[in-house]
């Protein structure tokens, strides 16, 4: 009897949550009702992904800026030599720094490695801000560090 009552109550709560969630996202234009194109993994398909070899070539050409999308703590622990730290959540705060960079400059964004999405999300934000040459180094810090390429702490 208690289990039946619990299941009945749980069912009603789920139904209420479905309606509430749908109504909330509809009113706030989020989720399925998103009006403007926001940051989402699907955007990964539109971003240019580069391999370690390509990232290394660009690094050696000295004609690009590496952007570390990780948390400041991780950046301080070690990052690609010369990389600028712009954590995803700090994007708006770092806008003055970004304004100093030419819009057609090659920007290579990276995060921890293949298991994080912040590099893609930051790359999308940079592209939305007008930067025309943004690339994502998807292998990120882990691949770069494992390859023994130049880093700094």
């Amino acid at each position, binding site marked *: 009897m*208690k289990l039946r*009552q*619990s*299941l*009945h*109550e*749980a*069912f*009603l*709560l*789920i139904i*209420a*949550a*479905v309606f*509430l*969630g*749908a109504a*909330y*996202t509809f009113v706030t234009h*989020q*989720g*399925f009702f*998103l009006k403007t194109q*926001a*940051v*989402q*993994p*699907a955007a990964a398909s539109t971003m240019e992904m580069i391999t370690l070899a390509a990232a290394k070539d660009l690094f050696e050409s000295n004609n690009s800026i590496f952007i570390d999308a*990780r*948390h400041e*703590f*991780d950046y301080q622990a070690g990052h690609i030599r010369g990389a600028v730290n712009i*954590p*995803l*959540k700090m994007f708006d705060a770092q806008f003055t720094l970004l304004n100093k960079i030419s819009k057609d400059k090659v920007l290579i964004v990276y*995060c*921890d*490695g293949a*298991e*994080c*999405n*912040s590099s893609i*999300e930051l790359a999308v934000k940079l592209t939305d801000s007008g930067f025309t040459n943004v690339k994502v180094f998807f292998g990120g810090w882990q691949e770069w560090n494992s390859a023994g390429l130049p880093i700094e702490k």
Partner: protein
Amino acid sequence: MKSFFSNTPIILLARIFLGGLFIAAGLDKITDVQAFANSILQYKVVGQLLSMCTATILPSLELLCGLSLIIGFYPRGCELLMTVMLVVFTMLIASALYRGLDISCGCFSQDPNVSKIGYQKILENCGLIILSVWLLLVRNQDINFLHIFRKQPEISR
């Protein structure tokens, strides 16, 4: 010991604690549904459609359950759902750890670099599962704010 676990203020505090946690978790997720959908995707268990469905419903469910548990509306249903949710969350975290994923939990913050998954998170969840199961098994389900503020009928002498 038995009286401690059936102590009314203890049960009430446990409900407020668990309910408050779910409200906090739900509020963070509902403010940025897209970010929460991204957090779900990082677990690599479901596709984009299902992650968006979950991101739409789960924050509301957490908020509803948290509020309902505290005020005492459908307490048994809340406790059952909370237990199921906690078990599923814990299994997902354990599975992600087993597969070597270095991702953020997405539990109380959608910042990709905050609150990475780990064994500590599993232990925390196990504690919460024990708490929710205990509340589910507590006989007196009337211990809540609704019960406290409900006007008690006067006993005629």
